[in-house]
């Protein structure tokens, strides 16, 4: 799928070209006196195979940023490019098609469809993308095995533990072999043991070269990333390269403490 996308666009995603890039992203809610700046003038480039963790306190705007990066919300200002396409120029329908091919989402609340089994949840994105039922089913089996839940494939979400539900959600996010997986507080609703399971899963994904953008306030999750970005009041205030890079502190530029 990823290959197909790259060839279709004539864009070869290399390590030195961003898969996802945002420039001057701003998101405001409300009007006049009630206006809230959720995200302020944020710029970001995510390289292929890179894992980026965005951390910050509750309400700092990190989830809003993730929704903007995933095209689930339109920015008030700024531009966004995914796989070489400018998201702000796309209609809702084209945006959905791009999301289908290029993005996978993992939510804090899992957002599994309650009346579907684990297997049916995982195959859903492929079916929505027009894959044949057999191909979607085979891929779902493969992914459930990958996340260690092949023995739970016929279970409904209500019969799964929190950690298992999140692993199903991760498997679902990978159904269409997305360029980027966006995860919003993936361990936010999990206990310690389940958190460890999910962390291991993200590490495995990272090791296979999957591009990840993870919003979290869990230090252990953040520690698995290549790059750590700290947000405060809707702005990036610090950026640290954790593996092989040079740490760069935005606080020096902005005058703010991380």
């Amino acid at each position, binding site marked *: 799928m990823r290959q197909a996308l790259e060839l279709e666009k004539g864009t070869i995603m290399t390590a030195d070209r961003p898969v996802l890039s945002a420039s001057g992203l701003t998101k405001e809610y409300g009007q006049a006196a009630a206006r809230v700046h959720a995200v302020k003038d944020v710029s970001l480039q995510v390289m292929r195979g890179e894992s980026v963790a965005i951390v910050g306190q509750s309400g700092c705007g990190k*989830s*809003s940023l993730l*929704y903007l990066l*995933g095209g*689930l*919300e339109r920015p008030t200002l700024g531009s966004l490019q995914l796989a070489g396409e400018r998201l702000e120029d796309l209609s*809702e*329908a084209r945006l*959905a*098609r791009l*999301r*289908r*091919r290029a993005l996978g*989402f993992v*939510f804090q*609340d899992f*957002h599994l*469809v*309650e*009346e*579907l089994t684990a297997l*049916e949840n995982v*195959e*859903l*994105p492929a*079916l*929505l*993308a*027009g894959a044949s*039922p057999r191909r*979607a*089913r085979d891929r779902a089996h493969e992914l459930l095995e990958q996340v260690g839940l092949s023995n739970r494939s016929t279970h*409904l979400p209500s019969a799964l533990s929190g950690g298992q539900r999140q692993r199903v959600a991760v498997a*679902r996010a990978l159904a*269409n072999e997305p360029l980027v997986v966006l995860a919003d507080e993936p361990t936010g609703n999990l206990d310690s043991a389940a958190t460890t399971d999910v962390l291991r899963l993200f590490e495995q994904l990272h090791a296979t070269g999957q591009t990840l953008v993870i919003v979290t306030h869990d230090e252990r999750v953040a520690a698995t990333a290549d790059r750590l970005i700290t947000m405060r009041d809707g702005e990036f205030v610090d950026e640290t390269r954790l593996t092989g890079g040079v740490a760069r502190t935005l606080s020096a530029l902005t005058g703010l403490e991380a």
Partner: protein
Amino acid sequence: MGRLLLINRLVTGDIKRHRGQSVLLLVMILATTTALSLGLALRHVSENPFARTRAATKGPDVVAQLGYAPGSARPSPKQFAPLLHAKGVSATAGPFPVAPASLTTKGISVPVQAEGRDSDASAVDQPVVTSGHWLSAGGVVLERGLADALGLHVGDPVHLGNLSPTVSGIAVSTQQPFYPAATPGLVWVTRADAQRLASAAAQPLGYLLDIKLAAGVSENAFYATVDAFGAATRGEPSLVEPWQQIRTSDYRVIGLDRKVLLFGSTLLSLLALASIAVLVTGRMSEQTRRVGLLKAVGATPSLVALVLLAENLALALVAAILGIVAGDLLTPVLASPGHGLLGNPNAPTLTVPAIAIVIVVAATVAAASTLSPAIRGARTSTLGALHNPANPPRRRARVIAISAALPVPLLLGLRLIARRTRRTVLTAASLMVAVAMVVAALTVQHDLHVTAQRHVAGSFFVATADTATANHVLVIISVMMVILAAGSTTFTAWATVIDAQRSTALARALGATPQQITAGLTTAQLLPGLAAAFMGIPVGLLLYQLAGGNLSEAHPPLLSLLAVIPGTLIAIALLTVVPARVGAQRSIADVLRVG
């Protein structure tokens, strides 16, 4: 006092905040209560029209007629003497002279009997004038069934034999079955005009005597009276008709109307109840979330129940009152028999029990909308009430498996249907009733058309008058049902959109386009609509048959029946597409953030 103020503030605040939903709920309950009050009123009004007319006109128990046939003796009023003084006779009116004539209007002639009457009121059989006035010089009063069939109104000029009177009045009577149950038709003229008509036709006058029997007169006494009259007629054509026989003839014609009214009002009430069920289940999910919100801000379970009840009651009672008024206004339009009998001229269309039923039903809607979410809210945690749907969606494994092989809109539509099977069945049932009524109305109209082609001028009116009123009633009831079904469909579409907003937002996050979501939500309404249309056609034909129609003689062309299916689907698509589009364009982030 403070508690009341708080409840008032919460109720008005919520109605203002959800203005669209409140208006929709009001309109739905209004349509339901209107249909219900109309259904109840129609049953009341259409009850026993013959007895009502007979009482209003002081109708005779027995009518004796004496006619003339070539070769027989000239009839004489004196021949009624045995009847005038017979045992058991308490009062008589007449003998009235009767002349055969031809009534010509708009190029069409129909044979009539012109009965000579006095301008004074008669003790027995005084026809009740429903428009215009009773006899005057140069005027003619037409029996209402005849006037309706010919499309005549007060003031219209007509030709009656050699006379050219204007229609001075239109009246009803039970002296003989109304037109077309009895032919020739009946007109009333002055005695002098009756004489003139007989002279012009070169025929002797016939005579007619209205007899009232004393209460409790035995059958034997009645037959003795008839025998005595038979002996006195000396072979002239004579007829003695008891009121029961006249009623039978009348009901042979109005039977279709009464059956249509009976079926129509029953179906209308059933459809109204189905709509209420749709309404209550549709509101459940939203109300449960509201319970969670109120609990979250510190309201006790009893306060929560009171707020919900007050809000729903306020809307339901306003709708009930408006519904009763609307039903009362619509009833006369439907219930006017259009034939020679009175509908219900004096009694109110809606009785106190009927009004009570409508208000109780509306209050039940309010209570049902309140009770389940309130109990559920009291039992579950605040968070549970906020996040969990009122009724967890059902899992239909087979539908899920089948839908996987279908295009995305069908996949989404089928899965949405499978989640809420009860709501789907209710929607399909209410749509089926509406389709059935439309098919029945189409069949009656086709029947009329066929009859019109089959009959030549003159007798054509006999046939059309048989079904014209039934058709009129059927069309109006069908329109009511279509309005109710349309409201119900729109409401169900909104309820589905609200209920499925999380799963549709998720599907969009996973790559479904807004167009696919819109098509999926519309499909969820179209599929039950398709089933309803297919089932509605045979049910409609069956209704027509049960209401006295004859399918073997006339059934609408297959093509026009089949056209009902795309017609139904187009109507459903139009009603659903707006809520579906709105639902498909809500911000994904907003929906998923709320959970």
